[in-house]
């Protein structure tokens, strides 16, 4: 634990994973509340062709161009999901699965196509696929912090609108808000949260980071503000814990450790949260019939 303050690499990785946890925790609260948990899965897979194209076009593997490429592709993917759901009888799950797998396949095709050409040099692409937190550089962390910071500031500015969108979009429209535009804005922020995390935890596992902290936080409170803060805290905690655990050196990859830390928090929350926790619920339901209904007249 002490190494956190002395080991430069570890500090960078833990900081990156922690910031990532905060950003995905904040935005994940909204996706969980809006039953769009799997949107993150679709976005992170859909980002691949964008990453490859950005690499092919700019020839650089600096974080920013790749993140922009990932963001554009992920965003287009969500737009397609929405178009399909709106204009056909295919439901949300089918549209998500379709976009996710086809975009990812396209990315794979482009990636192997670029690799088969003689002038290829594609270092840095693989780590977007599976994540390589250990390779996080100071530069990457700064990029993550700036983009994530912008996303959080936007959430703060549009707090009321996002709240309306999550709980009662019809009421929002009636009040004169353009809920469609606000939806696109929130989705864009989710895209940002995901693409900045791809490099750290990878495509498959990034989708968990926008679900787990929010789902855990939901168990502890019924207030949105508290939930978002808790979710950010849980996200940060998972990020830092995962980074620390994987640094113990016993061949524990960071991305999966981060996800498992988040999963552990979810499990604990599901079981032991004060009001919604399953354990207390079980205890209560055992006691209730006896104590509240001594004469057996509750039905009257």
């Amino acid at each position, binding site marked *: 634990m002490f190494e956190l303050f002395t080991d430069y690499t570890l500090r960078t990785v833990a900081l990156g994973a922690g910031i990532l946890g905060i950003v995905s925790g904040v935005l994940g609260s909204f996706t969980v509340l809006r039953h*769009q948990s799997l949107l993150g899965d679709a976005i992170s897979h859909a980002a691949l062709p964008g990453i490859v194209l950005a690499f092919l076009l700019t020839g650089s593997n600096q974080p920013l161009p790749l993140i922009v490429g990932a963001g554009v592709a992920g965003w287009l993917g969500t737009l397609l999901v929405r178009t*399909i759901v709106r204009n056909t009888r295919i439901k949300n799950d089918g549209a998500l699965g379709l976009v996710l*797998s086809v975009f990812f396949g396209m990315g*794979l095709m482009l990636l192997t196509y670029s690799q088969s050409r003689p002038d290829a040099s594609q270092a840095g692409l693989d780590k977007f696929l599976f994540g390589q937190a250990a390779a996080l550089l100071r530069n990457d962390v700064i990029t993550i912090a700036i983009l994530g910071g912008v996303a959080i500031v936007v959430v703060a500015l549009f707090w009321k609108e996002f709240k309306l969108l999550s709980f009662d979009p019809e009421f929002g429209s009636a009040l004169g808000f353009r809920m469609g535009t606000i939806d696109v804005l929130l989705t864009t922020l989710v895209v940002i949260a995901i693409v900045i995390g791809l490099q750290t935890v990878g495509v498959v596992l990034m989708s968990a980071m926008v679900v787990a902290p929010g789902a855990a936080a939901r168990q502890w409170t019924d207030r949105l503000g508290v939930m978002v803060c808790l979710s950010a805290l849980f996200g940060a905690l998972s990020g830092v814990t995962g980074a620390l655990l994987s640094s113990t050196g016993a061949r*524990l990859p960071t991305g999966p450790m981060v996800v498992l830390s988040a999963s552990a928090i979810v499990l604990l929350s599901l079981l032991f949260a004060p009001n919604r926790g399953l354990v207390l619920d079980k205890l209560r339901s055992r006691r209730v019939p006896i104590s509240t209904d001594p004469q057996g007249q509750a039905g009257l």
Partner: protein
Amino acid sequence: MSEAQLEIQAIALVTAVACALPGAFLILRRMALMTDAISHSILLGIVLAFFVVGSVGSPLLIVGAALMGIVTVVLVETLANTKRVGKDAAIGLVFPALFSIAVILIARFADDVHLDVDAVLLGELAFAPFQRFAINGYDLGPRALWVMGVILVLNLAGLALFYKELKVATFDAALAAALGFSPILVHYGLMGAVSVTAVGAFDAVGSVLVVALMIAPPATAYLLTDRLSRMIATSALIGAITAIGGFWLAHWLDASIAGSMATTAGFIFGLAFLFARDRGLFALLRRRKRQRWEFAQEMLVVHLLHHEHGPDAEQENRVAHLQEGLRWEGDFTEEVVGRARRRGLVYLADGLLTLTDAGRDHARRSFAA
């Protein structure tokens, strides 16, 4: 065409058709994303079975993986049934956790054996012919072709035997229960088929292509037909076209076959999405446009009927006045009047519109409706 190329296409074809059969039900039952969850979490099943068996080639790995697919479904449903998280969140929580455990186990204990995460996720069909199926040293063809062939036959048999049950349970679960066969049993039967198919397929083509092959062809077929039997047959046909088209696209680009097949599947879906005869985007737009003119003509005849024989009919029922009376643009007015005249709803004399008998009928009918 070399023998290897033929074999790869045969494997791709059999895999695509085998995936399309259960896929149709997944689309209809809104469980498309369960394939995504299953196709990822079977990695853990393979790893665990590998620890038990100690070899990568054993068929027990397939059994372990298929069991893990069922475990995934059970876990997702248990979690969703607590009502503490939504079904979507339950899927999003379960499979990354299982996948993470698998990746960690591989990194820690199985790094030196052939259990490659890349290969599991992405697959490499081009290498499939290297794994042969041989009895007594007699080569019977690629192993993947046999595995997928058996799975295809199993899926066909399951479909033939339980078609009615699947159909009723999918479209009317309450009726299925009333008729005496459990929707839950049908559900787990289907999930078992999905698991086994995904396990067999991902060995050859990778888990992401499994998702593409199970979802894209049935989703495409769903836009083309309303009959379940036809939807399944169309899915299988589209799967077959995807397999062959994808192979040649990959050949041409010198790129991943799995990726090219997913791209082809997406392309075919795109065509159906735009051009399907009844449900395509263009058909939809055409229909919306027709409805707009239809509605405008109705407004016109109702307006005319309303003012007919009235004191202000001379003024209200003039073409020039419609712009004000109905708040229409000039061009739009002309087009509507033109269409209404061609249909024989109104006739025009000196700028004054008069309803024909047909037009009067039409106006009354749209009142009644």
